[in-house]
């Protein structure tokens, strides 16, 4: 009897931790049996291709959340990158465009990182401010118009397929492996866990916490830029409002995967599952004919639910 009490508590905690994932898996099984078009090969390929673009940014967002922060400006960096990438493709060619866009994204990230890590302004203020500013910049440069590209190389890359899989999931896979290795097997990766777990203890034990926080934001900037470029490759255009829901999506996917908003635990492999679950959910909703505003409603609701569950679990563990 005495033994069984903590076990019961553990089970409840486990249920709370994974409630959303369990619900989503149940939903997927329900869809497989009720909707024929859901479990076809074409749709599965579609889901993989769709989830890969945001997944690239979600991996980096996970690293930021592990370090105990979060970033809202990723969505604007994404939109700005589609614009810059297309503009540069039209003028200086795709190789130059790739490196300029990547560097620009990293620069925006570094700006966030410097203000958060060094000046110690709260991350939500900094990233809220840069979110508005970078979006404004993208609107100013394009005069709010979408830009098309006729770059032949870009088109060739966009149409390149191995089997049914385009180049984007391959890039996504590379990003996952890179972040997984980096977080688990490098000293710097472990430093990020320590920084997010207990900032003061990490600092006192000689970890360069300022540099860790600075770098996670820089990496997210670069990853959001990479994701933006992949989007540009897919639809061969750039526009400022693209990717507006990116930050929301990334934060939700990370927490559904099981990385706590508190920081210090979790991992990229978990986020991959979170991204996949969300992608399947929205694909299924589209197949069921749910309208755009209803999907938006559900998206917000899922975020609130996972944050609340995460917070409740943390509170229970503390007690």
């Amino acid at each position, binding site marked *: 009897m005495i033994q069984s009490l903590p076990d019961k508590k553990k089970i409840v905690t486990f249920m709370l931790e994974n409630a959303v994932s369990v619900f989503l898996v149940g939903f997927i099984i329900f869809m497989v049996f009720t909707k024929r078009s859901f479990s076809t090969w074409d749709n599965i390929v579609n889901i993989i291709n769709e989830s890969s673009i945001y997944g690239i940014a979600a991996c980096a967002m996970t690293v930021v959340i592990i370090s105990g922060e979060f970033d809202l400006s990723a969505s604007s960096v994404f939109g700005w990158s589609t614009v810059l990438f297309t503009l540069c493709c039209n003028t200086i060619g795709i190789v130059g465009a790739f490196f300029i866009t990547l560097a620009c994204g990293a620069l925006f990230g570094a700006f966030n990182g410097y203000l958060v890590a060094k000046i110690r302004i*709260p991350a*939500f203020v900094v990233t809220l401010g840069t979110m508005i500013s970078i979006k404004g910049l993208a609107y100013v440069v394009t005069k709010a118009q979408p830009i098309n590209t006729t770059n032949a190389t870009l088109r060739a890359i966009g149409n390149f397929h191995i089997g049914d899989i385009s180049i984007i999931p391959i890039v996504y896979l590379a990003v996952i492996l890179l972040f997984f290795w980096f977080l688990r097997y490098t000293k710097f990766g472990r430093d990020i866990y320590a920084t997010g777990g207990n900032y003061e203890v990490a600092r006192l034990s000689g970890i360069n916490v300022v540099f860790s926080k600075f770098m996670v934001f820089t990496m997210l900037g670069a990853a959001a830029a990479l994701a933006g470029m992949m989007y540009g490759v897919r639809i061969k255009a750039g526009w400022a409002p693209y990717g507006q829901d990116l930050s929301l999506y990334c934060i939700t996917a990370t927490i559904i995967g099981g990385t706590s908003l508190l920081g210090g635990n979790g991992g990229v492999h978990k986020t991959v599952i979170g991204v996949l679950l969300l992608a399947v959910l929205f694909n299924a909703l589209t197949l069921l004919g749910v309208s755009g*505003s209803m999907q938006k409603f559900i998206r917000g609701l899922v*975020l609130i639910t996972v*944050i*609340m569950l995460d917070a409740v679990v943390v509170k229970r563990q503390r007690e």
Partner: protein
Amino acid sequence: MNQKKVIDIVRNNGIILVILLLIIITSIIERNFLTFNNLLNVLRQVSVVGIVACGMTYCIIGGAFDLSVGSVVSLSGVITILSINAGTNEYMAILYGLLAGVAIGIVNGILISSIDGRTGEAFIVTYGMQVVVAAIALFPSNGLFISGRISPGFFKSMGQGVMPIVIFLCLAAFMEFVLVKTKYGRKMVFIGSNLHVAKMSGINVKFNRITFFAISGLLASLGGIVLCSRVTSSNPTVGLNFEMDVIAAVVVGGTQLSGGKGSVLRTVMGAVIIGIMGNALNILGITAYHQQIVKGLLIIVAVGMDILNKQIKLREMAHDTVFAG
């Protein structure tokens, strides 16, 4: 010593001084800028942002944050206009709009206070709420613009002439009074500066925090209704990015985002100064998108200066103790 005082003033009011400089330059370039009519016009424009910012100030002083206000502005407008179009009494229609705002505020408050959330958690939860409420505002008209069938009356007068300014300033004066002179206001400052100590000293923290969010929701919906009355129609996406203007007004006014310190009157000043700045930039021919860049950086600089000032003060205090001891 005098020189030090001047440096202190510059440090504490840096942004306001820069904007004053902008105002002086604009008034030299454009004669019509500093006229009574133009200033009245600016005041009318900022009154909606100001009303919402007063509620946000309460929320922030109480140690939380409300990102959902923009969507509440949209939703309350939609509800009020739809009710009036359906033939409801205009007072009831306004009440429905206000109730929607209070309800959303209470939900925010219950969610956040039940997890003892501080600014960070409140930020993300209300971010989710922002998306949810924005979607709800889209449902009735499928995202389309709704024109109101409004006959002259109380509702129509709310947004005309000097009424928005009167509502805004009276409200701000009342809220400042409550903040400074009542038990409730003092509790708010206490909770915002230290949640746990406030809890241990026997304050009903949960209930009080829910009321902060409810007030924020109430004023956001009031702002939405005034806005609707001014344009006699409602647009379900009118509140998009509205929270940015509101936050800018609060932080430029000087309310600390970490909670426990701030004032409604300073928020009024922040809202007016930002309104004048926008007007000046318009006169100088700077587009709305350029202004967006400025506004984002303004939020960062306002908070950054505040934090740097605090660090400098700490250093000076340490310096003084070393040399005194």
